[in-house]
């Protein structure tokens, strides 16, 4: 049952990372209710930030000092410090990227969290199984559409899946070359419909699944695959592409640019499905944009 609360003031309390200082940071403010970035822009002087040494961790006295700095006294300052301590415990134990109570309302002589937020670090989920088991997963989207395609891509392990308005399906095996591919397609007058980035450590299976994801978008008129492998092996990538095409022959043209580790083997394997891979990225982009018209 929710009480009707008369808050006399709303505060902010949170823990996150400072990517510039390369450490966790505790954030306190006498202004609550808006998100922290907006707060930083509108009331920079009302924000207190305390960098935290990851080995020494956050100490109760730091919370009390921060409470005093945002103007709290007496019992409220003790309560605020307790909130900060709890946030730190959650942050550290559950590998949070951000944990905050916002707004944290002053109601009489009590502090009450009216809302809270917890963002977990994706790369730490392997050690958060207890927490994850207690979280009810989002129900899968019921209707066919961009949301269901996105959630399927996630299930298949595709790190980046993004849909736009165009008709070119773009696939890359690196974040930097993926962004470059998008920029070049747009510069050449093409329009991206769906974009997948597979990460630098990719398998034939993920390549095959990525083909499936891109072709599940009906407006995909042409697929442009830009592969330049270091960790990624081109023989594996070629196997993924040909495995998909053997199982699901398609009329959608597949333009492949291939370069790097095990390139000869990769080209030979693609040849078995009649695909001649480009070595030159710009020619591949021009070809794909031409085919999309």
């Amino acid at each position, binding site marked *: 049952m929710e009480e009707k609360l008369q808050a006399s003031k709303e505060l902010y309390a949170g823990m996150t*990372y400072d*990517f*510039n200082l*390369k*450490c*966790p940071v505790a954030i306190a403010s006498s202004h609550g209710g808006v998100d922290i*970035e907006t707060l930083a822009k509108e009331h920079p002087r009302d924000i207190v930030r305390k960098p935290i*040494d*990851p*080995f020494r961790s956050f100490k109760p006295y730091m919370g009390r000092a921060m409470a005093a700095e945002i103007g709290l006294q007496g019992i409220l300052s003790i309560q605020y410090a307790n909130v900060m301590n709890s946030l730190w415990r959650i942050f*550290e134990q559950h*590998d949070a*990227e951000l944990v905050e109570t916002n707004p944290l309302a002053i109601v009489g002589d009590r502090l009450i969290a009216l809302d809270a937020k917890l963002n977990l*670090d*994706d*790369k*730490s989920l*392997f*050690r958060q199984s207890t927490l994850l088991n207690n979280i009810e997963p989002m129900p899968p989207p019921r209707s066919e559409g961009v949301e269901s395609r996105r959630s399927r891509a996630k299930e298949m392990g595709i*790190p*980046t899946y*993004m849909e*736009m308005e165009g008709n070119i399906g773009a696939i*890359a*095996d*690196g*974040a*930097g*070359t*993926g*962004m*470059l591919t*998008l*920029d*070049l397609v*747009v*510069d050449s007058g093409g329009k991206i419909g769906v974009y997948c*980035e597979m*990460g*630098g*450590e990719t398998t034939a299976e993920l390549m095959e699944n990525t083909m499936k994801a891109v072709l599940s978008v009906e407006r995909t008129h042409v697929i442009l695959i830009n592969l*330049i*492998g*270091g*960790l990624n092996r081109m023989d594996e990538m070629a196997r993924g592409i040909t495995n998909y095409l053997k199982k699901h022959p398609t009329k959608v043209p597949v333009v492949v640019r291939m*370069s*790097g*580790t095990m*390139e000869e083997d990769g080209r030979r394997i693609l040849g078995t499905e009649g695909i001649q891979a480009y070595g030159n*990225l*710009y020619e591949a982009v021009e070809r794909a944009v031409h085919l999309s018209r």
Partner: protein
Amino acid sequence: MSELAILIDRGTKVVVQGITGKIGSFQTELMIQYGTKVVAGVTPGKGGQTISGVPVFDSLHKAVGETAPEVSICFVPGPHAADAAMEAIDAGLRLVVVVTEAVPLFDTIKMLTIASEKETFILGPDTAGLISPGRSKVGVHPHRLFLEGPVGMISRSGALSYETAKTLTEQGIGQSTVIGLGGGPIWGFTYLDALRLFQEDEDTDAVVLLGEIGGSMEEEAADYIKKEFSKPVVALIVGRTAPPGQKMGHAGAIVQRGKGSAQDKIAALEEAGALVARAPREIPNLLRKKVRI
């Protein structure tokens, strides 16, 4: 040409952490083929084997005692990667290249905190490593795309550095050292660290800076270039056409609330006197405007 490139040279002794894994063993073989002096490998519990002729030890300290490496490259999986890197820092290595992509944020912070106390450089995490063409490779670069020469290169994305090196190599423009910084959002070694070394390196006549959206590392680099860097810089920022709020494959590649946009980075670099390309293929001519190569 001097024997010593920045960070690594022909004689640099390298230890591979995680040498017995699928990726570690494959990439060790490729590094040895290139001429890198891999003197030891480490996988706890698997000491006594050899991989590609390299002795495997149970602990890094044992490997250091018997083979005296100065530099480590780490392929250890995410849950144990930071621990391995901290062992390397503790053993007194001067450079640790963390190739592992999924290192938990909190672990990354701890690893970087210890590294800064010991003055060890951490490259990464999520990095392709570095290569000084013709001399040594401590990374996963497809080395045929690289050529020895006078251009230094720094990139967050490994794949984008392969792409750009390929373009330069095809035009006969070689590279002194090519450094991958990693996907972020927190980096050990930065553009700034690399520029400082290139400033002092007599084999480097010009620098290619490959950046991407998100964070403010490129802006910090621009500030240093403007104030102190005396060699010509040609830059490329990818992600010009990426939609705001979308993580583009790297954890650090995201435009949030108008911050970290390609436009801002391009403006800062141009203001600092760098020539900014729109694609790798424009880079050779921009370099030729500034240096005789």
